[in-house]
């Protein structure tokens, strides 16, 4: 077992619990933006794709990494963009007057 495995397990467990506690507090009103926001945050896999493509080891891994960059970066850009668009639409009765 690699030595980092256990420290990653710790990180996963703490982040998972943290996520559960944070997300339980999100109003059901915002469940759609919640999904698009977490999607955009998840698109951070783009950093791994950048490294794989940039290491330029074999043609196959470079191509896979390059496609992964486009797929995840489009989630990052599109996800934040649409979340903000949705959230801008939520207004109270008072704010409208």
């Amino acid at each position, binding site marked *: 077992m*690699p030595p980092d495995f256990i420290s990653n397990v710790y*990180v996963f467990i703490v*982040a*998972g619990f943290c*996520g*559960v506690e*944070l*997300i*339980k507090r999100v*109003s*059901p*009103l*915002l*469940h*759609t*933006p919640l*999904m698009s926001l*977490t*999607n955009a*945050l*998840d698109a*951070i*896999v*783009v*950093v*791994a*794709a*950048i*490294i794989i*493509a*940039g*290491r*330029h080891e*074999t043609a*196959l*891994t470079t191509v*896979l990494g*390059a496609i*992964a*960059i*486009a*797929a995840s*970066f*489009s*989630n*990052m850009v*599109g*996800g*934040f*963009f*649409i979340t*903000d668009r*949705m*959230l801008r*639409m*939520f*207004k*109270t*009765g008072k704010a*409208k007057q």
Partner: protein
Amino acid sequence: MTIAGVQQYLDFAYVAAVILFILSLKWLSSPMTARWGVLAGEIGSAIAVAATLFNPEIVQYKWIIIMLIIGAGVGIPLGLVKMTAVPQRTALSHAFGAASAAMIGIAEYYVGVPHVTRFQMGEIGLEVIIGSLTFTGSLIAAGKLQEILPQRPIVYRGQNIVSLAVLGLAVLLAILMVVNPAQAWLFPIMVLVALAFGVLLVTPIGGADMPTVISLLNSYAGFSAALLGFVLNSKVLVVAGALDGSSGFILSVIMCKAMNRSFTNVLFGAFGQVTTSAAAAKEERPVRSASPEDAAGILEVARKVVIVPGYGMAVAQAQHKVRELYDALIKRGVDVQFAIHPVAGRMPGHMNVLLAEADVPYDHLKEMDEINGDFPQTDVALVIGANDVTNPAAKIDKSSPIFGMPVLDVEKAHTTMVIKRSMNPGFAGIDNPLYYMENTLMLFGDAKAFVTNIVKQLSSQN
């Protein structure tokens, strides 16, 4: 600077990104601070991406830059879609996220082979299987939501056995690879089998179950990213994946509770096929129907109106007309609230977003538990394109397939009006006794056209 020195700075950047991600979700808890949440997420992601570009392992930038530009070029239009298309956009983004996690896992295997250890192989195998099945499963879900594929469940005899056998085969291949990670020829077969399982998993699921399925796929996409973090020993991926995964998981639990069903029942239950025969056996019963004039007359004298929107409102694109109705009633001093069932529509929160887009103030959008006690004091409950979530059989009829599902108590209002195309039950084929009740009026027609007519009546009587 040494390579190790640069790495240290990169780690600081990733820690900053993780802090911002957690703040991002924290601020999303309320509509007042939610936009700060988006900003925090954007800054965190920007820091992480910018820092990564300084990683000394990178020897070639050309493709990185080109693909980032292409990614932005695809992402911006996907961020500009209409609000009615948000469920399919979300499913598509789960597909993209899972695909990139799977592709990176695959690349990592080929970088390492033949020096991949058994432990790494186990991690990569699990990661690639989950990523691949989430990719095709999400594509099928997006196809169903976009109505390229039929929304009704597609089922055949022995389906669950076939699906589980395919999943079993993928796992078996992964185990064989763990036994000897150097058998590179098995790897593409494992990926293909996992891709096939994703198709088999989602094809039998009907449109009404989409809120649960989309949440489950969300959670799989997140967990595949977290697993990728384990493979690459990247803590920022572990954290982001765990946050996304737990978010999808919580939403799935909420959706399942709101339908009184279990995960296995949603995934392997193939809702609808059993119940069609039962519904067909029912005899014709009388219903009372009303015209837009009648409906407007009743709404006009009401003091409290609760509108119950469902997927039918989204299909008819009636949300803006519903807002006009809301305005017309508010102007007459009527108290108007919206009752939102957790599984109304095709994804969690779908109705809230549509109504917010139409400028309905969000303080008038009430959750089921918050509004159910109000129905006995409500003069008119107006159901627009919702069906199962208003079905009183869920409370009393033990033989109903939705028995036990929490529903909106619309029948307790003095008058219940239901806008519906016809008496034809939906694909789930579940009969709704609400339609035959004495205080129920059926308003037959297209949701948008009918609401438009009611609004016209209300304004002409001014």
